[in-house]
């Protein structure tokens, strides 16, 4: 058996002998496997959404999300943080032609996510993104209050206000404690983002219905800020930097806490209003091959799809690709099976 294998191997190798082989392993900074692992892992994760059985898809998704968090907790240098991706992409493009391995190292994550989003839809957001996962898991806890709040069309609610007040109190206390020991720089910008989150929370508690759509445009602003920061080579830390980069800096830990607390109040608040990477994904999603199709003839207008969507991306079956995370919740809950996942290569 092994003899035959050797023969086949030698034959094949002789076929390819005139082609230059990869001399060194494609190891990035300090010999880490980070970039290759991300390509492999993201590739797998992108395939899984279609592979998993439909019956228990949401459970599989949560497993996938936990897996995503687990992977990226160990990813030390390339941070999957929403800011890191943009900054790294810029840096990686800059290194092309100088240090190709480093270019791969910086570009691998954003390129993989972009490519998978262009082909398989924005499943990264719903199935992998650790920030999103964190928010979704924290959103489970307060579902009891947020779901009826949403059903009622986001009126003013004391419960939500209390939660927002609590988040604000945590923020202010923490800031007070921090301010006694350190000065803040632009690098501590995660603080500013959490500030914005708090302000947003209060706006939304009172005026969610009117301001929701308009505030979603803030994403473009934060995208511009990050791009500008990348060009200016400012290191703006991501609000969830702490969890994924082994940088134990209290400011970024605070902002991680803030994202979680804010997500208690309003599900997926970061993804809705602030995520800069979402701008890029939304562009990719618009051009993606895979999309969720809605068959209006089957629809019984029960409105369950809109109820179940954390992002308010579905309204009577019409999916807003700008917002959709491809979590397939609407697909799975639809009693009339109106939704189907389709690959349209001609699009």
């Amino acid at each position, binding site marked *: *058996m*092994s003899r035959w*294998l050797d023969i*086949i*191997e030698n034959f*094949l*190798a002789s076929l*390819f002998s005139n*082609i*230059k*082989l*990869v*001399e*060194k*392993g*494609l*190891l990035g900074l300090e010999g880490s*496997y980070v970039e*290759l*692992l991300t*390509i*492999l892992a993201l*590739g797998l994760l992108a395939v899984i959404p279609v*592979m998993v059985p439909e019956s228990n898809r949401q459970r599989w998704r949560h497993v996938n999300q936990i897996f995503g968090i687990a992977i990226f907790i160990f990813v030390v240098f390339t941070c999957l943080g929403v800011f890191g991706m943009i900054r790294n992409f810029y840096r990686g*493009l800059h290194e*092309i*032609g100088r240090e*190709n*391995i480093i*270019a*791969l190292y910086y*570009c*691998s994550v954003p*390129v*993989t996510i*972009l*490519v998978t989003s*262009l*082909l398989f839809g924005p499943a990264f957001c719903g199935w992998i993104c650790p920030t999103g996962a964190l928010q979704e898991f924290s959103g489970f806890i307060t579902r009891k209050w947020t779901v009826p709040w949403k059903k009622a069309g986001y009126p003013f609610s004391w419960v939500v206000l209390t939660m927002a007040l609590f988040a604000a109190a945590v923020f202010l206390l923490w800031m007070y404690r921090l301010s006694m020991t350190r000065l803040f720089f632009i690098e501590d910008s995660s603080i500013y983002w959490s500030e914005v989150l708090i302000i947003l929370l209060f706006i939304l508690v009172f005026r969610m219905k009117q301001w929701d759509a308009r505030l979603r445009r803030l994403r473009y602003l934060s995208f511009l800020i990050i791009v500008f920061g990348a*060009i*200016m*080579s400012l290191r703006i830390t991501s609000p969830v930097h702490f969890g994924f980069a082994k940088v134990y800096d209290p400011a970024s830990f605070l902002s991680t806490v803030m994202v979680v607390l804010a997500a208690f109040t309003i599900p997926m608040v970061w993804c809705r209003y602030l995520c800069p990477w979402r701008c890029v994904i939304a562009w990719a999603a618009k*051009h993606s*091959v895979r999309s969720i199709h809605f068959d209006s003839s089957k629809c019984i207008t029960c409105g369950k799809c809109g109820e179940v969507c954390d992002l308010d991306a579905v309204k009577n079956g019409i999916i807003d690709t700008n917002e959709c995370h491809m979590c397939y919740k609407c697909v799975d809950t639809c009693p009339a099976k109106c939704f189907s996942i389709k*690959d349209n*290569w*001609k699009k």
Partner: protein
Amino acid sequence: MILPTIWARGMKNNASSPFRFFPFLIVFLHLVLLVVSSKRGWMPPFEFFSILLFVSNCVCAVITINRKVNVTMLSAIMLIIAGHAVIGHRIAPDSLTSGAILMVNILIVYVGFNIYTFLSGAHFAVFAASYLVLFYIFIIQMENAEALFILSLMGLAATARKFSLISYFWALVASFTVFQPYPWQSLAILFLIITVILSVPEEDRSPVFFIFLVCGLALLFFVLFPVFVLVFNEDVRSLINVLKVHDVKMALMRTMVTATLSTIILGVFGIPFSYVLSRVKFKGKTLIMSLMDIPIIIPQSAAGIALLRVFGHNQVVGEFFLRVFGIQFDATMLGILLAQVFVAMPFMIKSAYTAFCGVPPDLERCACTLGATRLSAFRRIALPIAARGICIGAVLAWARAAGEFGAVLFIAPYPQTAPVVVYNRFLSLGIVQTAPLVAALIIFSASLFFLLQISARLLPDIHSREDKA
């Protein structure tokens, strides 16, 4: 190994046949084989690829039962996996690298098959040719660029199905490889050009238009390239630093103030004049119109010397002004203003003239019959309708005045305006020290110019509606 055939065998069974669990049998056999082979030492135990092969076999088994996937494609993918298993460690020194390559290869096969099946031959040809060219560029042409090859293949996989996307992709690749020293510059210009070409509507896509467009865009590239190189090559911090230099800051301020003042002067004298030109026929009108072009025709240095010859403090007119009013033109702000007004005049008057020509004189006549005097008809009818054209002209004149160098240098080399500062800096410090200043100037004036242009265009465009009616 023998997987593809066996697995294809599994495909043939229909749902009711007892063979439908055949793939699971294969997976089981594979597991047995794995264990046995590792026990016997045929393969290293838990070698990356044997595990990967096993996993992919499982996946295939599941898919075969679901039967949703193109069989040929799946066999090709399986073949690639098998091939990697056999020669993988020869291509790459470690299994992870090999695994990444395998991943990308699978992606390429998946996309390639789908393009072949669902899209036209042209798409597939572009896809295949792109693959080969990428291979040539990264593997044969560049040293140690396998990493980039992997990245670019992923990009290709994502973009190959749309001509628009793949053209952007190629712009990216080309600017970072072929135009290497200036990647960002060429990227910006190429993106601009591609966007222009792609946005041409379907019905206008004739080869002639296309060639003409490309000719013009090539020219544009030639013009834009140096500008972009200068702008993008500078570090943002050095730009900000150079703007903090006192001389530069003052010069910028001075340029802005003088350019604005000269535009205002031109507006006050030029707008009524061009109104009269557009409304009244008289002898010598053509002559006046062509004389207006003199500041454009003559070289700037000549203009400067001409001004100096008349308004210099030891010339007749200059001396008169100095004696009577105590005004000196050379080497003062007034001199700068004089030079700027001189060179910017045609821009202001010509565009105001065109704008007023676009206002039907009947409108003013009508206003007159309604009780408006000529002046009031001008103020309430002609001026608002022509405002947009006049504003765009004023912006042009402003830009011309702010950028004036030759004439200003001769009549008022000091106090320095921004272009003069650039020149002096270049003389004393050389090109390297001047570049950030120039970049800052370009960014500053370009952004201001576009801002003004946009705000001028925000004024209502009345003529298009007139035409429609």
